[in-house]
């Protein structure tokens, strides 16, 4: 990655050339290319008129005006000339996009930023724990107390030296990038690059860290073919050059609170393309040319954005709607105040690292070799062979990508660590839902809160039953559980109820004066209970 920064120009040139070839092969006649360029120009013009952002470059209008003029020119000339002009325009647009996507990575910045990040976190934590800003410079606590790393971290560390890592975490909160950044550092891993939403660069505090932490910029407003192809090529080329990468394969944060069950295939597909390209260059599978996938699940007791996320989800469920980015993380001060809350109150985060896999869903051993169901080693190059030759078959790779996504979803559910604060809202919600099963979800969520009360003994009985089922799943290797989940039943319930969504103004779950279970906000209760979806536990209630 450091190397990547060094020959940035070279890198951008290669991306431009490859994207150019891809788009030319998709729009393979001059008229269709001109149509595509015209459409792109139209969409871009519309975008900066209706949805401009602070960080958009100043010369946008000028640039696209020039594109417009050239397109007119291309229209009024002979075919040969039109081809030349349109290809020139295409190249210019790609170059512009490529430059925008590839942030500005400087090694010195990176190191500095890492140090500042760690220093800052550690200071803040100490101050918070010791309840005084004077404790700012003491060394009593570290982030390790706050964030637990569980699972296959050793495996990850080892494989990062053998091949290229693609880390694919679930995405619940904007805090994810920060916690992941910390974890990567804490594990002593080399830097990862990752695509961060351009909107986050609107915020100064994020912008500084992300620029330095190897983030490249993804602009979700741009949905045109040229942009998407350039982005794909960027990712593919970076992986091919051995940059460890991090994707949120769910795309955006989970709106519903469910663990991702449908993944975006675009960037995942670039890993498969890069793997094929690697084998074309050096056919023998071995050091430096193999790509490993590591699923990560981040477990929170509390997601700051929960109320607005679930609001979006409910508003748009049933219909795909354009989503305007606007949330709690819109200004630096709000983030800061959240971080302070996070450090001052006792909310832990655990990150579960899954076992490393190859791109085809096979687990790999500590040497990075893929192992099949009967324990044989697999050469993953074989996945690209047809009659002994590496062949390019886009449909085949699409299918591999779909299979990889399926495998990841399975792994997420398997390594997901169930906390008391996951089980508590699930049990409450399901009891209530069953009580009102005749009405639809939306009417249910609007029920008057006075009606929401579950007798503690009833709740306890169901909680016990579901907890046993969860432990059965755990014993079968289908899910992970937090140690806290196995202690005394009343204690587990208390911990679950107290921790779930603990900083929301309206608590998803409370124990009321009568000692029974109740809620102050059914929407967020729904959000937190969704986390337990996919295990078919509903049927036991």
């Amino acid at each position, binding site marked *: 990655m450091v190397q990547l920064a060094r020959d940035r120009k070279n890198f951008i040139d290669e991306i431009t050339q490859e994207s150019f070839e891809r788009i030319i092969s998709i729009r393979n006649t001059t008229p269709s290319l001109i149509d595509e360029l015209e459409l792109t120009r139209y969409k871009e013009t519309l975008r900066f008129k209706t949805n401009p952002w602070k960080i958009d470059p100043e010369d946008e209008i000028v640039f696209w005006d020039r594109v417009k003029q050239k397109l007119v020119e291309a229209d009024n000339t002979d075919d040969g000339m039109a081809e030349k002009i349109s290809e020139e325009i295409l190249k210019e647009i790609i170059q512009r996009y490529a430059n925008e996507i590839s942030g500005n990575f400087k090694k010195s910045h990176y190191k500095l930023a890492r140090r500042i990040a760690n220093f800052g976190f550690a200071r803040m934590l100490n101050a918070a724990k010791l309840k005084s800003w004077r404790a700012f410079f003491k060394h009593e606590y570290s982030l390790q107390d706050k964030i637990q790393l569980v699972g296959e971290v050793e495996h990850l560390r080892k494989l990062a030296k053998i091949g290229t890592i693609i880390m694919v975490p679930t995405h619940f909160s904007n805090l994810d990038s920060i916690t992941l950044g910390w974890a990567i550092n804490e594990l002593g891993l080399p830097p990862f690059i990752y695509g961060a939403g351009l909107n986050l660069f609107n915020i100064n505090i994020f912008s500084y860290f992300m620029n330095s932490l190897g983030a490249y910029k993804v602009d979700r407003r741009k949905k045109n073919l040229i942009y998407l192809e350039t982005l794909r090529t960027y990712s593919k080329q970076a992986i091919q050059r051995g940059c460890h990468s991090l994707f949120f394969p769910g795309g955006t944060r989970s709106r519903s609170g469910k663990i991702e069950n449908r993944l975006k295939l675009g960037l995942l597909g670039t890993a498969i393309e890069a793997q094929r390209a690697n084998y074309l260059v050096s056919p023998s599978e071995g050091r430096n040319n193999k790509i490993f996938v590591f699923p990560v699940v981040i477990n929170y007791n509390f997601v700051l954005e929960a109320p607005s996320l679930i609001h979006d989800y409910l508003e748009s469920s049933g219909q795909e709607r354009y989503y305007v980015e606007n949330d709690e993380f819109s200004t630096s001060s709000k983030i800061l105040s959240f971080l302070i809350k996070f450090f001052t109150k006792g909310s832990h985060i655990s990150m579960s690292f899954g076992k490393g896999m190859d791109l085809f869903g096979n687990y790999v051993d500590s040497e990075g070799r893929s192992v*099949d169901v009967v324990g044989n080693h*697999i050469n993953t190059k074989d996945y690209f062979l047809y009659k002994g030759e590496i062949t390019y078959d886009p*449909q085949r790779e699409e*299918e591999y990508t779909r299979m990889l996504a399926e495998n990841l979803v399975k792994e997420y559910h398997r390594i997901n660590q169930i906390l008391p604060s996951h089980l508590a809202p699930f049990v409450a919600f399901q009891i209530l839902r069953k009580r009102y099963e005749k009405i639809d979800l939306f009417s249910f969520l609007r029920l008057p809160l006075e009606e929401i009360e579950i007798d503690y003994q009833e709740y306890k009985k169901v909680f016990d039953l579901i907890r046993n089922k969860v432990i059965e799943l755990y014993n079968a290797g289908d899910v992970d559980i937090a140690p806290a989940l196995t202690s005394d039943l009343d204690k587990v319930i208390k911990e679950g109820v107290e921790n779930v969504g603990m900083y929301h103004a309206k608590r998803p779950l409370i124990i009321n004066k009568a000692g029974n279970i109740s809620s102050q906000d059914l929407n967020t209760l729904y959000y937190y209970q969704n986390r337990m979806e996919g295990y078919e536990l509903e049927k036991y209630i």
Partner: protein
Amino acid sequence: MSSKNTYDKPVAVIGAGSFGTAVANILATNCDVLLYARKPETALEIGRTRTSSGQKINERITPVNDMELVGKECEVIFPIVPSPYFREVIQKLSPYLKPYHILIHGTKGINVSSSTNQKEKLMVDDIFTMSRVIRQESIVVRIGCLAGPNLSKELADGQPAATVVASHFDEVIKEGQKLLRSDNFQVYGSKELLGIELCGVLKNVIAIAAGALEGLGFEVNSRSLLISRGLIEMVYLGQLMGANPQAFLGLAGLGDLVATCSSNLSRNYTVGKRLAEGEKISDILNTMEEIPEGVNTVELLVKLLDNYKMRAPITETLHKILNDELTAEDGLKLLMKSPFNVDIDFI
């Protein structure tokens, strides 16, 4: 250039039953074929007599009994063995399989994994089509299936016919088409692997019922009623298991259904007929050379239906007849009373 004789490596067929042999003969018009027989003496016998399951075999077919040879020599393999043995066969072949192998199976049955074997009720996830068995037991991903109105005897006689090759991979479909297509044999492609597999599986149930109708002495009107209602039942069961309805309307669905519901050559049809004529199921199974897949399928489907709030009148009635709870005659009476009033409601 002619597409014939261009495939350089041999292709294997695993299973020298009547359908396996027929497929091997069709393949042999385009390439060399290794025909795997389970017992070494059978392989020798086929080699000596050049006859397998009563069919003369093409000179390009070599009978074998060595899984390692099959895995190493062939990149394309057609496993065509009855579903009760299917898993075991793939387990034996698995050590020699690589991710580049293409497996196109021709087995029209389902089974469950050994751990769920004794369960009273089944979930959709407990049911394994043969492509799922291949995925579970081997490293192979390029998986396809063969389905369609392909009565072995007619294929062996070289009568015109067609089949469907289904796979998620275009290259598997293309390969299957290239290898199987001949002047008298047309090959269609489909991306609906699960749907096409279930067509072959579910039509066997209806075929038993059709045989029973004939055994009771009924003719065309009643058979047509059964075929059309049977198709709808297939679509619903298919949807329950995650398949799209479209697949059922094509050659592998309706096409195969009509074939097996009209012919004495179908094993499942024969089972139904003999049941209606008063024979016991155990006696019938004991005297049949090859396994009628439909009997096992009915058993598994009923365990599945128990778990979901769904009715499948033909399957449920057959289940009762197969378990001696009803005579074929009473079963039919019961079905005729079923309150159907909507003809088609899934499109």
